[in-house]
């Protein structure tokens, strides 16, 4: 059957590029999902409404496992718009389309707005410079008990104290120009080089790249002192600053 085209207008097809977040899981997938849940719990809504591409290059999984993985992600409200690096044999009908030719972009472009989640939406720290490739968050007032500053994109600097019951979670280093009485977590998305600096250490907990130290594990001599903490292997080291 042939249709007679009466409308002279053509269909417009255009190319356009968009920015997507790429997730690259590793094996075993269960453990990777656990780590993802952990990250999501610290920055809820990170994936919400964002285009996400699943990069399965060099990942040894079959079609069934891939289907399961996509299902698990969709249960977590992560909807996959495309799959990159998949062997044609593991793709099938009903799956997101295969993508290729993706180019890496700077982190800054992905996270246009920093994810700062203050549990009571308490203070709204100044938005960081959008142009900087490495981002910094500067908070010019004390962080109060019950407030939580989550900034996976880079360093957090607090000009003031961090109260008992408050927490700072940074992707990079944490700098506190005041007393640290609450919790500080640096390198929260896997940065072993991140450090924690404070003018007065009275912390409840310090953590770098998931390795943590409670108040009672810290050397008593450091209490009340200006201190920096860093990671050496699996141990948090700390020493007084001059």
């Amino acid at each position: 059957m042939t249709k007679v085209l009466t409308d002279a207008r053509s269909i417009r097809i255009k190319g356009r590029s968009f920015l997507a977040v790429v997730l690259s899981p590793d094996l075993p997938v269960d453990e990777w999902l656990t780590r993802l849940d952990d990250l999501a719990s610290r920055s809820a809504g990170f994936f919400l409404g964002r285009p996400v591409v699943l990069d399965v290059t060099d990942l040894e999984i079959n079609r069934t496992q891939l289907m399961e993985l996509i299902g698990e992600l969709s249960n977590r409200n992560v909807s996959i718009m495309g799959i990159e690096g998949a062997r044609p044999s593991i793709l099938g009908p009903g799956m997101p389309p295969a993508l290729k030719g993706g180019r890496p972009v700077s982190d800054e472009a992905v996270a246009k707005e920093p994810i700062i989640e203050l549990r009571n939406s308490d203070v709204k720290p100044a938005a960081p410079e959008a142009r900087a490739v490495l981002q910094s968050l500067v908070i010019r007032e004390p962080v109060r008990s019950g407030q939580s500053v989550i900034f996976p994109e880079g360093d957090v600097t607090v000009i003031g104290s961090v109260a008992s019951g408050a927490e700072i979670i940074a992707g990079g280093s944490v700098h506190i120009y005041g007393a640290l009485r609450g919790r500080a977590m640096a390198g929260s998305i896997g940065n072993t080089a991140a450090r924690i600096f404070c003018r007065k250490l009275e912390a409840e907990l310090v953590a770098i790249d998931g390795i943590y130290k409670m108040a009672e594990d810290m050397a008593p001599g450091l209490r009340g002192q200006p201190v920096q903490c860093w990671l050496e292997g699996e141990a948090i080291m700390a020493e007084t600053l001059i």
Partner: protein
Amino acid sequence: MGKVIVVTSGKGGVGKTTSTAALGAALAQRNERVVVVDFDVGLRNLDLVMGAERRVVYDLINVIQGEAKLSQALIRDKRLETLFLLPASQTRDKNNLTAEGVERVITELKRVFDWVICDSPAGIESGATHAMRHADVAVVVTNPEVSSVRDSDRIIGLLDAKTVKAERGERMEKHLLLTRYDASRAERGDMLKVDDVLEILSIPLLGIIPESMDVLRASNLGSPVTLADARSAPAMAYFDAARRLAGEALPITIPGEKRGIFDKIFGRKAA
């Protein structure tokens, strides 16, 4: 337009109601028109501390629900012409406190009074947020004791987030009122020092109220301490705090110490 003050603390039992009554009476004794408003719906006590518990006809909830006019619910103090109380409801559910209703009442009160002092309930729930919402100034009542200091810190965070002023991006004026300060315990080193509390909370100090039997006596009698015994140590401290609220710059004296805090900071002797 009057100024709206919220007296808040997070923690219960630190002296919010006592301080509301004492500051309210102190300001009214300067011939300024003052209303003290009880936001503790279901657990009202400001009427008792003010000695007006037998005279409550209508309350804040009645006014919000449109069952009474504001003028009918206001109770004039028997001792001070310019001091009024707007009591909370003892029997109604606190969910009757609506955002629009509170805003309307506060706006109306601001038009008539020089000072609208809101006595917040303890906690950080709706009652406390309603009480702080329209404040121009917050008086954070704190005891020199760890749990009170931490709760105050939490409340200061909320003041910077959940008030109309904060939402407009304006700076919320916050003052610390240190209550139940025991000079002898401080001397023995069994109590947080004033400087420690100030350093932790980093807001300016409005006053230090010494722990005193006079405060208890005053509430037994149903009279703000600034009225019951104006020459007592806590009353004098409240009078000074009220003067500072009104904008006067007065040096602060730590009870039990001869020298003012400023002398102490500069390390100078009186002579």
